[in-house]
C-alpha cells in the first residue's frame, strides 16, 4: 500500500456517522431492569391478552434459568464486556395520543427525525409507492398505505395492532420458527419485545408494493427489542425492506430483535436489510450491539425465501438469517455485504437447513474490513437424510482495506444424504495497489478508485436489492467510504 492510500483508508476507518443526532421527543419509559413486574408492565401497556402474557412469562423464566456464561454464543469471533441486563431500560415509547388516524397526528419531531434520515413517511414521498412502518425506540409510530394494502387483503401493521386485530394469526405463528427457547437473545426478546411489524399476504396475492420498516433507537439507556412476523400464504409474493439507525452515544446499546418468516406452498418472500446502527466512534467507544435472530421456514413445497443484507453499522453484529427448507423443492437464498471499519466486529452468515427433497440454497457473502475491525462469515449448510438431491452453492469473498483488520470465514457443512451436491468457494483479497493505480492512471482520484473497486466487489449483492434500496445502498457504501476530512 502506498503511504497516501494507507492514509486514506485510515481516514475511511475514522469517518463520521451521519445519523448520530438525537431527537427531542417526549417519551415514556419503564424503570431499568428486567423482572416479572417489567414484563407485566409491558404487556399491560399493550393491553395484551392473557395467552401472550403467559408466553412472555415462560420466556422470562427460561431466560432467568439460562446461565449467561453457558448460554451465550461463545463460538462467535467477538469480544465485548459483560452486559449488565439490569441496567437496561426495556420499554421506551414516544409519548403521543393513543390512536393515530393519519400522518398529520404524528409528533412533527418524529416526522422531522425520519425526514432527516431520508425515510419516506411524509406525504410527497408516499407517492414513491413503498408502504412504511416506522418503529421508534420500542413502539411502532406510523404505518403508511394501510388502507390501500387492505384492499388486496394484505395486512401490514405494527405488531401490537396485529395482536389486537388478528390474534388468531399471531397466536398461530408467533414462535413457530424461532421458539422462545431458541437462544439467549431470542429468549430475552420473547420476554420483553415491545413492538415490531406484522405482515400477512393472503393466498395468491402478489403484494402490490414494497413493504418497509424503519427502526430507530432514540432514547439513551434503552434497548430495542422488536419482533417481526411475516406470513406469506399459498402462492403469494412479498418484498420486505428493513432499515435501522441510532444516535451516537458513548454507551453501548443492545438491539436484540427476532424476525420470523413463514412461506407456504409456492409462496415467495424477499427480505432486504440495510443495517446502519451507530457503530461507535473511532476509538471503539459506544455503538449498538446488534444481536439478532432471523429465520424463515419454507413450510411447504416450492416455497422460496431470500435474505439480502447490507450491514454497515453497529459496534457488534451477530446474526445469521437462516432458512429451513422443509417443503420439497423449496429455495433458500442469502446475499450479504458486511462492511466493518473502526473497531467494529461482525460475525454474520446464514444457516441453510435442507429437509425436503430437491431443495436448493445459494449463499453469497462479501465481507469488507477496514481500520481495526474484525469481519467473520459463519455459515452452516445442513443436509438432512430425507433431502434427496439437495443442492447448495456458497461463495464467500473477503476484501481487506489496510493491514490491521481481519477477515475470517467459518463454513460448516453437515451432510447426511449422499445425493447432495454442495459447493463452496472462498477468496480473500486486498484492495490492490495495482487496481487503485490503474484507476488513477485513467484520471480517477484515489477515493473514487477505492469506491469504485469496493462497489464492484459488492455489485452482485447490491443488484439483489429492490431498485430504491439499491441506490440507497450504494450511497450508504459511498458515505461509509468517504473520509471525514475530505
Amino acid at each position, binding site marked *: 500500500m*502506498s*503511504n*497516501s492510500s494507507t492514509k486514506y483508508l485510515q481516514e475511511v476507518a475514522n469517518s463520521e456517522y451521519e445519523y448520530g443526532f438525537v431527537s427531542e421527543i417526549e417519551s415514556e419509559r419503564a424503570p431499568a431492569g428486567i423482572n416479572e413486574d417489567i414484563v407485566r408492565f409491558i404487556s399491560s401497556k399493550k393491553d395484551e391478552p392473557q395467552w401472550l402474557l403467559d408466553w412472555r412469562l415462560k420466556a422470562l423464566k427460561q431466560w432467568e434459568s439460562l446461565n449467561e456464561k453457558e448460554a451465550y454464543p461463545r463460538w462467535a469471533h467477538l469480544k465485548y464486556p459483560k452486559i449488565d441486563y439490569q441496567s437496561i431500560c426495556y420499554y421506551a415509547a414516544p409519548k403521543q395520543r393513543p390512536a393515530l388516524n393519519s400522518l398529520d397526528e404524528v409528533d412533527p419531531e418524529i416526522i422531522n427525525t425520519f425526514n432527516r434520515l431520508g425515510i419516506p413517511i411524509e406525504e410527497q414521498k408516499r407517492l414513491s409507492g413503498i408502504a412504511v412502518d416506522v418503529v421508534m425506540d420500542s413502539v411502532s409510530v406510523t404505518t403508511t398505505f394501510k388502507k390501500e394494502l387492505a384492499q388486496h387483503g394484505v395486512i401490514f401493521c405494527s405488531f401490537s395492532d396485529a395482536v389486537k386485530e388478528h390474534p388468531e394469526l399471531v397466536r398461530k405463528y408467533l414462535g413457530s420458527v424461532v421458539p422462545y427457547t431458541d437462544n439467549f437473545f431470542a429468549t430475552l426478546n420473547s420476554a420483553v419485545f415491545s413492538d415490531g411489524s406484522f405482515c400477512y399476504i393472503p393466498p395468491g396475492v402478489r403484494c402490490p408494493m414494497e413493504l418497509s420498516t424503519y427502526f430507530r433507537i432514540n432514547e439513551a439507556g434503552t434497548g430495542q427489542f422488536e419482533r417481526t412476523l411475516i406470513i406469506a400464504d399459498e402462492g403469494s409474493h412479498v418484498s420486505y425492506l428493513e432499515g435501522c439507525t441510532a444516535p451516537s452515544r458513548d454507551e453501548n446499546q443492545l438491539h436484540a430483535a427476532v424476525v420470523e418468516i413463514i412461506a407456504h406452498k409456492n409462496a415467495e418472500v424477499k427480505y432486504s436489510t440495510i443495517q446502519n446502527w451507530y457503530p461507535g466512534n473511532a476509538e471503539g467507544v459506544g455503538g449498538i450491539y446488534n444481536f439478532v435472530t432471523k429465520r424463515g421456514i419454507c413450510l411447504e413445497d416450492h416455497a422460496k425465501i431470500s435474505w439480502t443484507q447490507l450491514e454497515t453499522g453497529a459496534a457488534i453484529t451477530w446474526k445469521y438469517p437462516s432458512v429451513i427448507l422443509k417443503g420439497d423443492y423449496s429455495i433458500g437464498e442469502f446475499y450479504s455485504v458486511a462492511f466493518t471499519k473502526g473497531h467494529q466486529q461482525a460475525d454474520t452468515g446464514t444457516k441453510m437447513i435442507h429437509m425436503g427433497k430437491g431443495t436448493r440454497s445459494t449463499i453469497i457473502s462479501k465481507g469488507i474490513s477496514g481500520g481495526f475491525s474484525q469481519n467473520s462469515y459463519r455459515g452452516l449448510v445442513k443436509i438432512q437424510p430425507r433431502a434427496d438431491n439437495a443442492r447448495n452453492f456458497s461463495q464467500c469473498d473477503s476484501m481487506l482495506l489496510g493491514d490491521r483488520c481481519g477477515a475470517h470465514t467459518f463454513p460448516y457443512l453437515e451432510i447426511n444424504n449422499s445425493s447432495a451436491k454442495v459447493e463452496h468457494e472462498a477468496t480473500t483479497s486486498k484492495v*490492490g*495497489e*495495482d*487496481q487503485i*493505480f*490503474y*484507476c*488513477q*492512471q*485513467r*484520471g*480517477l*482520484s*484515489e477515493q*473514487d478508485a477505492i469506491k*469504485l*473497486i469496493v*462497489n*464492484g*466487489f*459488492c*455489485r*452482485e449483492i447490491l443488484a439483489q436489492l429492490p431498485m430504491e434500496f439499491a441506490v440507497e445502498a450504494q450511497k450508504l457504501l459511498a458515505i461509509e467510504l468517504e473520509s471525514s476530512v475530505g
Partner: protein
Amino acid sequence: MLRIENLHVSIEEEGTRILRGVNLEVNAGEVHAIMGPNGSGKSTLAAVLAGKAGYDITDGTVEYFGKDLLEMNPDERARDGLFLAFQYPVELPGVSMSNFLRQAVNRVREYRGQDELSAVDFLKLMKERAALINLDPSLIKRSVNEGFSGGEKKRNEIFQLAMLEPRLAILDETDSGLDIDAMRTVSDGVNKLRSEERAFIIITHYQRLLEYVIPDFVHVLVDGVIVRSGDKSLALELEAQGYDWLKKELAESAS
C-alpha cells in the same frame, strides 16, 4: 512537451538502481520507440512517468508542458493528458467498463474545462471508438478486463487511449503476447490515433511492432541509460544483430 533530464531511479527500500541518468525529449506529433533487453529499465521509465508508487527518484527532472511532472499525483497526470497503456492491465471485478470509462472521461473533461458528457453522448463515443480500433462491442458491456484474454486486454488499453484522447501516450510492451493478427489490429488503432498534437512513447522489446507503427526516433536503453538514439533503421540493425552486438560495442568503447 516532455523533457527528461538525467533521471536516476531506484526501487524503494531495496535501493536497487534501475535508471542511471536518462535524457529524452519528446515533442508533439512525434513517435519515439524505446527498445532494450529485459531488465534494462524500460518499464520502470514508463511507471515513473505515470507516477506509480514504489520508486525513489534520486536525481534528475521531468518537465511536462513546463510543469514538474514528478510533483503531480498520478490522477492529475492522467487528467493532464498522460496515458499509460499497461503491460499487464489489472482486472476490476464487478466494475463495468462503461461506468469506469464514464468516470474517467468526465474527470479528464472536467480538468480541460469541458462539460460532462451526457449518457447518450458517452454511449455514442464508446461505440464509435470501439469500432475505430475493432474492439468486440460485447467487451464494453463486461467488467473491466475481467475474464478478457491477453489480446483483448491489450486491445482494451488502446480502446481506452482512444476514449481519453491523451496528449502523450506511453505504450508499455503492448505488443508482448500478441499474435500477428492482434498486433496488426493494435497497430492499426495506434496509427489511426497518431496526430499532430499527440506524442507516443512506444516501449518494446522487439522490432516487430515498429514495422507497423513507424517511429520517428528509436532509443536503446541498456542498464538504465540510453546508449544510442537514431531513426527507424536503428531498430532494424538491432533486429539483425541483437542487443549483444550493442553491449559488446559499448564495452569496447569503454575500454
